[in-house]
Structure formats: C-alpha cells, structure tokens
C-alpha cells in the first residue's frame, strides 16, 4: 500500500491515554512520534518521580533485535564494553564508537536469551549495524514500532507494580529483567531507567498499551501515580547525571565539522571501554588516545547561585575553556548542576571555573559570571535506587 495520506506524525500505542492526560496540550516531535512535553505542570511531574511514581512513554526509542549464533561476537565488535560479561536476563548500559573512537550513540542492551539481544538507543543505526554485521551470523531487525514501552519510576514504583500483581518484582536487581503475565500476554520488566531513582521499564506488545496503561494507573491511584512529559524527564536525568545523545554529545556519524564529536574518555565514560576483548570499533583510536591523552573532558559542575547555566560559556581566568551542554536547578538535591565540555586541562575534580550565564527577568537580561566547581559525580543517588529487595516507598 502506498501511504500517501499517512499522517505527518505518528502516535504511540499509549497515545489515547496520553492525550486524555495531557491537560496543557503541549507536545513535541520525538523521532516522528508526537509525545507530551508536559502533562500538567513540570514540577509536579518531576516530584512524582522523586516522591511517588511517574510514568513516561518511551515507545519512540529506537529498538533493534539482534539474534543469531554470532550475536554476542557481533555486539562485542559494535560496542566498547565486553558483552561476554552480560548474563542472560541482564541489561547493560553501553556505547559505541566509529573508527576514530568517537561516540556514535549510547543505549542499553538486553540479553533476552543466549543468542538474542535487544538494543535500545537514541539514533537510528541500522546502516551502521548492518555494516558491522558483515561476516557475522547475525540477524538484525528494527522493532521500534513492535515494542511499546513505559518507564515507571519513583519510590513507590515497585509498590505500584506489585499492586498490579507482578509478584516478586521487588527481588529484581538493578539492570535485571523479568517476565510477567498480563492480560493473557507476557510482558517484560527491567529495572532500568533514566531518572536515577528506583524504577522500572515495562516492555510490551503495542496492542497491550491501553489496557496496561489503565491497569497501571488504577493500581497506582493510591501511590500518587502521574504521567510525566519530556521536560520533567530532562530535569530528572540531569540531576541523576545522565548524558543525552544529541544534547551532550553529537552522534559521531552526524557530525559535519571536524573536531565536534567526542570519545568515551572525553565524555567521562571511559569506564565503558574494555580493551581486554577482541577488535571493536574505535579500539585503535582509543588506545592511541589513552596513551596520548584526551583533548576534552566532560565534567559535572556545581554552579554558584540558582540560575541554570544553560548554554553558558565556561572560562578559566579570562580564557574560554568550554561550554555547558545541559543544566538545571535540581529541586531535590538543591544544587545548580551543569554538564560541560571543557578543555581536558581544566577537567579535574575540584577545578574552579566560571560560567557566563544570561537570564531574563521581565524582559531584562542579566549576565552573571558564576563561579563553579568540577564535582565528582551526580548530585542525586538515593539508596533506594540500588536496594534489593526494592523498598515500597
């Protein structure tokens, strides 16, 4: 069929429910799907995740199914981490590089069975995956539209899912996954997320979307459940210290200007690189960088004052040494946090820097030169995030 009258923008399997809940009618285009930016009010949505349960529709995330006898070997060539260490039923945060050792994307890999994986990521990578698959016995299928997903995040999220009848879910360890029967079908729950809190992601067939949403919100009524949009999620991920592709780094194959892409070391993700495994993309370049040192450093900055330092220039003395890629005032941690790309010489912990922040109040723009300090890591990391069994609140 020739879809000439297909709509410009697609709907996720949860669209009818999102539409009903999206009181402020604020939407955005996420990879061709219309998804809510805000449902009711950003702060309320943010605090739902930090205080009770927030639900985020992540169906538009790009998903690939990777299977075949060489699937493990293939993934090991693709990514920088050693996939051999990932057990069946476990999830891993990974990234992959081009031949110059620059990060193309990050994502999560689910090991569904011995030779069956799901890769969930930001960019669309089929071309790269297929090129990388040359010589491997592996099948790669894009399944973005075939798998619907909701993130259920927050201190009461475990309790909500238990109330839905997913018994034993409290025993699921971080980065673990489990299957549950629901409405005559099976769905998969992983203890993963993008909020830095206790939380789960639920993966299901698209036709389960609406009934699952309804059941979830029924079960969550007593636990303060609330749908959240992308604006709240952005605050949450910054507070938790998570990088976002396309915001905190340019996917390497989309970079046009030379010197704009970054290596894992330059993104503070060197811990995801394992040289103790067979050849993988970027290996040569990364070995060289490790030996010669990196040009840039990714840092978390604790910025003085309460003005978010979005897009600010970063100085050391009078020299411009970098820019800020993400910034937010963190309501829970009560910190003004920023992620910055700086010259590697100014990237060590404790380094004092200055952020040039512009902000507007009643049409008046003010510039502040805010001092900031390179800090060790994210400012929010509650114990409940890692506790197993998971707490009820």
């Amino acid at each position, binding site marked *: 069929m020739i879809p*000439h009258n297909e709509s410009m923008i697609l709907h996720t399997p949860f669209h009818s429910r999102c539409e009903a809940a999206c009181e402020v009618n604020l939407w955005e285009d996420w990879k061709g799907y219309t998804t809510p930016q805000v449902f009711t009010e950003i702060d309320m949505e943010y605090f739902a995740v930090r205080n009770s349960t927030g639900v985020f529709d992540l169906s538009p995330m790009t998903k690939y199914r990777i299977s075949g006898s060489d699937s493990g070997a293939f993934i090991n060539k693709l990514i920088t981490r050693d996939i051999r260490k990932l057990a069946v039923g476990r999830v891993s945060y990974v990234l992959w590089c081009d031949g110059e050792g620059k990060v193309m994307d990050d994502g999560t890999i689910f090991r569904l069975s011995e030779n069956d994986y799901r890769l969930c990521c930001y960019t669309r990578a*089929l071309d*790269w995956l297929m090129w990388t698959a040359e010589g491997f016995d592996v099948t790669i299928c*894009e399944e973005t539209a075939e798998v619907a997903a909701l993130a259920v995040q927050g201190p009461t999220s475990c309790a909500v899912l238990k109330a839905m009848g997913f018994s034993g879910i409290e025993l699921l360890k971080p980065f673990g996954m489990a299957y549950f029967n629901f409405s005559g079908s099976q769905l998969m729950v992983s203890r993963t997320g993008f909020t830095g809190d206790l939380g789960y992601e639920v993966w299901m067939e698209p036709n389960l979307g609406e009934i699952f949403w309804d059941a979830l919100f029924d079960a969550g009524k007593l636990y303060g459940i609330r749908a959240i949009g992308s604006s709240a999620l952005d605050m949450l991920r910054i507070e938790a210290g998570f990088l976002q592709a396309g915001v905190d780094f340019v996917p390497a194959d*989309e970079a046009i200007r030379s010197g704009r892409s970054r290596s894992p070391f330059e993104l503070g993700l060197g811990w995801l690189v394992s040289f103790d495994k067979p050849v993988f993309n970027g290996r040569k370049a990364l070995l060289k960088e490790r030996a010669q040192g990196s040009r840039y450093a990714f840092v978390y900055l604790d910025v003085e004052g309460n003005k978010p330092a979005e897009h600010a220039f970063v100085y050391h003395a009078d020299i411009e040494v970098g820019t800020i890629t993400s910034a937010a005032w963190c309501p829970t941690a009560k910190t003004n946090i920023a992620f910055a790309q700086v010259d590697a010489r100014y990237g060590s912990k404790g380094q004092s820097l200055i952020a040039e922040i512009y902000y507007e109040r009643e049409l008046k723009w003010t510039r502040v030169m805010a001092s900031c300090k390179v800090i060790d890591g994210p400012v929010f990391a509650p114990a409940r995030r890692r506790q197993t069994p998971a707490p009820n609140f």
Partner: protein
Amino acid sequence: MAEKYDAIVVGAGHNGLTNAAYLAKAGLKVVVLERNGYIGGAAVSRELYPNWKYTNCSYVCSLLRPEIIRDLRLPSQGLQVVPYGGGVTFMQNGDYFGNHTDHERHHRELARHSKRDADAYSRYEADVMKQTRIIRPFLMRTPPDPTSLKPRDIRELIGMAKAFGGMGEVGLADTMRFWTMSIGDFLEEYFESDVVKAHLAGSGIIGTALGVYSPGTAYVLLHHYMGDVDGSIGSWGLARGGMGAVSNALAGAFKSFGGTVQCDSEVAQIIVKNGKTVGVALTNGDEIHGRIVVSNLDPKRTFLKIMQETDLPKDLVSKAKNFKIRGSSGKLNIALDGLPTFNGLPKESPLCLGEKHFIDSLPRMERAYDDWKSGTWSKDPYVDMLIPTQVDPTMAPPGKHMMSVFVQYAPPKIDGRDWTSEDRDAFGKTVIDQISSYSPNFKDLILHCEVRSPQDIENEVGLTEGNIFMGELTFDQLLFNRPFPGYAQYRVPAVKGMYMCGSGTHPGGGVMAAPGANAAREILMDLNRASLVPRGYDDD
C-alpha cells in the same frame, strides 16, 4: 556617433547585470548591451501568451548568493524567493519515492523503500554536507592561480590548504575521491534502493553532458546542494514572478546606480587597439566606446565570435576552442488548463509542489545518456518537472498552470546536423508521452507548449550549444581551471581592459550571480578603487 562609457558590459544576463550594478555603484559610467529586445539572458520570464509567463530557461532559484541579494537590495526591487519543498520520483511499478520536507516523514518514506537506506541517509547527508562546506567559502572569492608566486595567490592558496588541512589525512583523501568519482558509484556506497539512488542522482547530471556513471559527476551533485534559501542549505526556491524577476531586480538596482541598459544591441566585435580594449562595434554599425569591456557571454562566444583571433594570445584561442560546453538539455514549457494528477498521489499532496521525476533507476538514467552520446535525444529521458504556479500565483490565470519541464539529455545537434522542426516535435512528443504515462489527464490539459532544443536555447539566449552552465562543471573546468587554466581571475591578461563575468567563470552557472560580482571586484581592484563587493558569509 560614439558614446563614451567607463565600462561596457556585453549581455544583460544576471551576471552581466550584477557586474554592471557593482561597477555603477562604484561610480563608473556603465552600459549593458543586450542583443535581444528584452533583458535576462537565461534568467527570463516572458509573456508569450497574454497572462501566461514563460520562464523558459532557468526555472528555480537557490544558488543566487544571499550576500548579493542583500547588498544590492534586490528585495526592494521586487525580488522575492519562495521555497517550495516536496519532490517525487515516480516509479514504473506505480509506486513513487517522495521527498518530504519534514525530516521524520522523510525518514519514513525512505524506510518504505529500504529501512537500511533510511538510516544510511543521515551518513549521506553528513558526508555531502562536509563537501559542501569545503566549497561554499570559495563561491564569493576569486580563485588563486596555483602557478603564480604573487603574494595574493599564495595567500589564497594557503587559505585553501588550511581548509583542506583541517579535514585530516583520510578526510582529504575522501574529498579527492569525492571530486573524481561518479555520482552512481558514490550513491552505491550508501544506498541499496534503486529509486532512492535515482532520485538523488539527478543532481549529479543536470545540465551536464555526462552520465551517472561518469567520473566527476559526484561533484556536480554538490553544485546543486550548495545553495540556500534563507540558510537552509540545499533547499530550492522559486523567484516570485518567474526567474525574470531576478534579472529585473538586478536591472532595477543597476539603473538606480545610474546605469544604462540598451536592448536590441548585438555586439559584433570587441575593439582592441594596442592590446587595450577601446569599445565595441554593434551589428548595426554603431560603435560604443569604453576602456573596460566585460563579457557576460560564454568563453567560446567571447573569444571566438566577438573577438579577433589576432587580438588574443594563441594559447587563449586554443583553450577557448577546446572549452567543454556541450549542450545536454532541452526544455518544455507547457501551459495547462488545470492541475494534472499523477498516479498514486493525490493532487493535494505536498510532494507535488516539488520537482517530479520519472526515472527510477541508475541504469535507466545512464541509458538516457547513451542516447545523447550517439547523437540523439533520450528516448526515456530524465525529466526535472515543476509546476511553479502551484506556489506562485503570478504566472498564469487562476486555476490554470504553467509547467516547466527540464529534459536531459538532448544533444546540440542530431547526428551532427541541425535540429529540424520534425526533430523538435518528436522530442517534445517523447517527453509528453513519458509524463502522460504517469499522468492520465496530462495530455488533455495542454493548452500550449513550447519545446526548446539546445539549439533553440543557443539561438535565443546565446549559450553555446545551449549549455545551461556556460561550460561543463567538471573538475577540469572548475576553480582555477574555470574557464581555462591561467584565465580564472576574470581578466584577460594580454588584453588590458578585457574581462569575463559570465557563468563560464568561477564559480559557474546556476543563477548564482557570484561570477558577476567576483569579476566586478577584480575590475575595481585593477582601477585601484575600493571594493564594494561583499565577501561571502561565514559558513560555520
């Protein structure tokens, strides 16, 4: 009666007018001489039928430098460039490939033909953009002479070397590859779907007497990607009122600086005395005097037709003779009683606003070129068709439409002989038949139709062989090789006062106006006057 001017510009095409406008703006007394009774050259819109405007040569506007539009205040002279978006390649199996303006919708359309191609497209876009970014800064500059040791040339060459140096070893090699490979081979490195490749390959051959498998055509693609409409690089727009609006606005600007345009004045001869230009002789016997003569004609016409061989250095004459300026395209301009429908697409589809093509594979495109090589027009031609009246309400009566059909390939001569009117009819029929096999009601809507062979274009516009770019855009005729090695800086060193400003000079054709502006900069430099010609905008 000889009138005296500071500068005489031969040809009122867009480059001649641009050049003249800058010279006049600098205070020179300038006349532009035009052979035809109307101005515009190949950027022209004429009312051939009452209330129907025929933009019968160039038909879209993207490369026209925004620096010049702004600097000469062309909008205040009535120029308005409107983007149109869309575009579609119809397939033999009844399907089509559409060029959606929305990024995500475009991805989905690509994925409909190949999921892998859809994802490869971002790599393709990034790689082409890398090449585009290298070339764009040179558009508004005079190419350096690599054989020269003048400080200016060396400075420019070092600048160029720096731009290339920034790419790194592999990047540089990739660029050299890109410039020397064929568009077909280049696209094969990204895509698997025939129709996707065919859709994209068109830009590699338009106006070029080469096939999609001819080395060097990847660069031609770039030539179509480096324009912009309001900063959106690679997108194309329509000049409201037809391409004649570009020429009219330029002429308006020129006149506002005190310049004179003289139509029906065909130059027979550029008069050279003691190695200096002193003026021109018209075919009607008039002489017009001026110490600077700027030719907006193509290099062959300039040096072989309106100049004396004895006034020119020998090498220049032989280079002009060997200049590659092959006619490869024809044009149909069709007045329609209504909007035609196309198989598989509703009339209202935004895809229909853009260019329509009817060739869905590279081999079909290459075979179209094989016909040209053997001295005839393509029997299954590559057509770049546009209905500007869908966007521009000024060109036809309400409810009626004007269709512009660019046809590739059509040779300047049929089997070595001139085109006959039977040839022209048969050529027109070939094109109309091809379109109607994708559009059932198309034939019935035709009110009147103008068929233009390369020979017609030559006769009317004066482009040798009807080559729309005033010379092939292959690398042996680009940058410091355009039009010829050693003559790329707009002046004719052996003849004082003689300059070139047409599309045959750097950076080439496509209604850019950059050659005219760059030539004006050189002329003003030779006169020790301050340059008024803008530099290109930074591209970062």
